[in-house]
């Protein structure tokens, strides 16, 4: 079955330190992967996506993600965390079996401490 896993419910990082939010996937064929961010009581905002090509994808707000086919992972990263990065982060993958709908991870709460 096609699926997405975000193994950490919460990640705590000190401001200025690098951050990583993990995502692993299980799909047949080529994966189309996405990261979104949700600030409190708001809708989701698109951060970045991997379709094909370079394994390192750059997105909004200084975020990037590394696609690793052998480990079936698409971890979200940022070299230096800001307090304002504190939010809920969702990973998603296209499901070709259901009209290319998105399959969502459960979300990871990122807390950046000053």
């Amino acid at each position, binding site marked *: 079955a096609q699926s997405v896993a975000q193994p950490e*419910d919460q990640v705590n990082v000190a401001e200025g330190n690098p951050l990583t939010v993990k995502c692993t996937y299980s799909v047949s064929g080529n994966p189309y992967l996405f990261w979104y961010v949700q600030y409190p009581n708001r*809708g989701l905002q698109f951060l970045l996506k991997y379709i094909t090509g370079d394994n390192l994808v750059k997105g909004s707000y200084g975020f990037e993600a590394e696609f690793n086919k052998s480990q079936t992972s698409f971890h979200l990263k940022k070299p230096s965390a800001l307090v304002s990065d504190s939010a809920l982060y*969702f990973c998603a993958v296209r499901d070709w079996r259901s009209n290319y709908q998105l399959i969502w991870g459960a*979300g990871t709460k990122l807390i950046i401490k000053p």
Partner: protein
Amino acid sequence: DVKVTQSSRYLVKRTGEKVFLECVQDMDHENMFWYRQDPGLGLRLIYFSYDVKMKEKGDIPEGYSVSREKKERFSLILESASTNQTSMYLCASSLTGKGTEAFFGQGTRLTVV
């Protein structure tokens, strides 16, 4: 700037009421979606529409219906609201294509009492 607008940020309704959640997008997107978001469960798809008057059930359609009479507008209807439908509801739209991202509205937090 792309925009998906949900008619209400917060709603409080009584059990048994018929509830309408409205969503409008200004990007001429073919696809529109209604999700429900609950803590620890991520986003669950209720219904989606890939064209005017077309709709398909998502993962949790029970207790909901939808209407898409115009391309830009997608309505979610709770036929008879129940307390277990208290949740955050998110509308989204997208172009058709495997690599296209979805754009979300700001969400409607519905409380059924």
